[in-house]
């Protein structure tokens, strides 16, 4: 059973492709580094050489409320808010 305790938000345009989210995710799960076994896939647009993270929702358990991917993203492309009602997308629109 996946326990959803907050809201993980992807901001595709902020992603710079560093793969820290994948490395942090795999480490949090296994204490090994492996983008392949992380719960994140990096989508890649070769026309613009642009990446964006996608979360495999059946794999992700939000690290029990402190997602390693959001903590590891230096560019703000994955953010986490424990209170799901305070949606960042809405804040930015305002």
């Amino acid at each position, binding site marked *: 059973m996946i326990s959803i305790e907050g809201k993980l938000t992807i901001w595709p345009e902020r992603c*710079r*492709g560093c793969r820290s989210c994948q*490395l942090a995710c795999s480490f949090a799960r296994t204490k090994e*580094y492996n*983008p392949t076994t992380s719960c994140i896939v990096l989508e890649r647009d070769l026309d*613009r*050489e642009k990446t964006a993270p996608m979360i495999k929702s059946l794999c992700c358990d939000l690290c029990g409320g402190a997602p390693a991917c959001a903590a590891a993203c230096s*560019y703000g492309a994955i953010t986490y808010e424990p209170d799901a009602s305070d949606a960042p997308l809405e804040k930015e629109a305002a």
Partner: protein
Amino acid sequence: MTTWTDRTWFVDLTRRDAWYEERPHHEVADVLGGSGFGWQIIADRLPAGVDPFAPENMIVLNPGVLVGTRTVGASKLTAITKFPTVASPDGRFYIGSCTSGGRYFAIGMRQAGCDRLVIQGKASEPVILAVRDGGISIEPAGDLWGQGADPAARALVEREGADAGVLTIGTGGEKLVRSALTFIDRTNSLGRGGLGAVFGSKNLKAIVARGSGSIRVADPDRYNRVANELCERVLAWPRREHWIKLGLAAGWSTFKHTQNPGMWPKERWDQLYGEEKRLESLQSVIACASCPLNCRLRWVLPGGEFDGEQGLGSPYSKSATSGQLLGIEDDRKMIHLVTEANTTTGIDFYTTTRLIDFVTRMAEDGRIPAEQDGITLSRDYVTYQRLYRMTADREGLGDVLADGWYRVQAELGLDPSEYWYAGVVKGVDFIYDARPSRFHPLMMTFLTRPRPHHGGSHTRTNSRNKTLEEIKDQAAHWELGDEVMGRIFQETSYSGKFNVGRYSAYMEDLMRVKNAIGLCTIYTYQALLFADDMARLYSAAVGETVTARELIRRGERISNLAKLVNVREGFTRADDQPPAVWFRPMDAPEGRIEIEDYYQTKVLTRDDLARILDDYYDERGWDPETGHPTDERLRSLGIRATVPS
């Protein structure tokens, strides 16, 4: 893969064979593993005197020991080979290393169980190598041969998957243009001095690397704590916001002083090539793996002849300097030449534009006939563009330029030492000139490194106007002890407030460490990570406790191995000489620019530089007459090889 074992894959393209050797960490630890052990393989197995294009030459590709972990800037691959740049009038070639980051390739190698790839032989027809789980295969290049570096990379990613690492060469590498580069993951160039041409000589178009294995470190919790702490430090850097907005388009305020060719007034250069101009074409900044300070760029040219043209890499600084040298006021025309090289031909922009500058100016001055094989040499963009393509295609005079400075000397009778922007050392032109840059330690390593390029050796001293306290503070982290620090920071009449020769020896050793572990040089350039941080990371990764001093000692061992194999090729102190042009004042519109020490306390003479070189060799324990490692020093470092008599 683990960080406490080391697996080298060997590929013989002639025999179409691949095999591996695996060693426990302690067998490679004295040279740190990574590219350190790559140098050991070169020292043990590359015969002296082979032609760089002969099948016997080796390419050794080394992901850093920390690559694939989440550590700031741990993304680098270091390649070692005998480079095809003709390094002396009598036709010698240096063995050197080059290093670059990336997002997929180096990690892909390690995930596929390959800590190092040694390529030898020559394929009978064009091939690619595929490094995948379970081994390495040699596959036909098919229609990739003849394609540009970027279309080939793109085709391979489309075929292998979005997370496949790719290393490709362009059409210039296929045609053995001696400056040709390789490209990693489309965004990073690797191999000034001609790594791409060595690939071409082996009929090797590309390598793809993709695996699914995990990277394990010896003490995961400790390693992760250190990595997190260092990341927090980088995120708190006050200049980070500016840097991540501009990547390698940042830094114009320093660059316009240090790399000024002195032909235009600075305000004019500012208007034509400055930060505002860069923002007109900059589209996005791309990070290497695990890097919170992204620097790779994507640009799209706005308007003009090349409207809408897109490129990947880092075009701005190089186009600004060569644009001024060639007198091209439209930055888009110069950026187009970078795009053409990065996308298609893969030839080196610096060397090719410097050579074009040299021959066209010499024709203008009547030193050589303007009518040359296939072209009339004049000082205009159409001619430059044509020469650029003729070089990549080895057509007419381009065939001469494709062989570099000493072929130009042999065919046209022009002495490379006369080249006015920075000159030439070991057959390589410079990206900086020591006069506007001043004689800082990076300029020193251009003289003393086997391959005259920075190769990831930056420290704080590569920026202007850092305080002596700041420089001392960074060096204190090297843990060298009071005696060595006293020698480095002893003021002298010939080197100013610190001794560039003695400092540079340790700076080079630290570069060897960074390259072996795979850490990007931007972090020591900006004083964000220090040698003792590297020691903490390395210790937790490999399960052996080492100090910064010990790391640098092992770096010194690698420096000595690198020197030793070049001694076998006939290099001596005579090859480490500063170009004559450094001692001629540059007559810039703002006034004379002369070569000075870091703090501009005096104009340096040839004799001053000779004394600085003396101190460099002395600090290394090398013979000051020959510049060769002494047997005593090699013995004290535990290096078994001896200096050839």
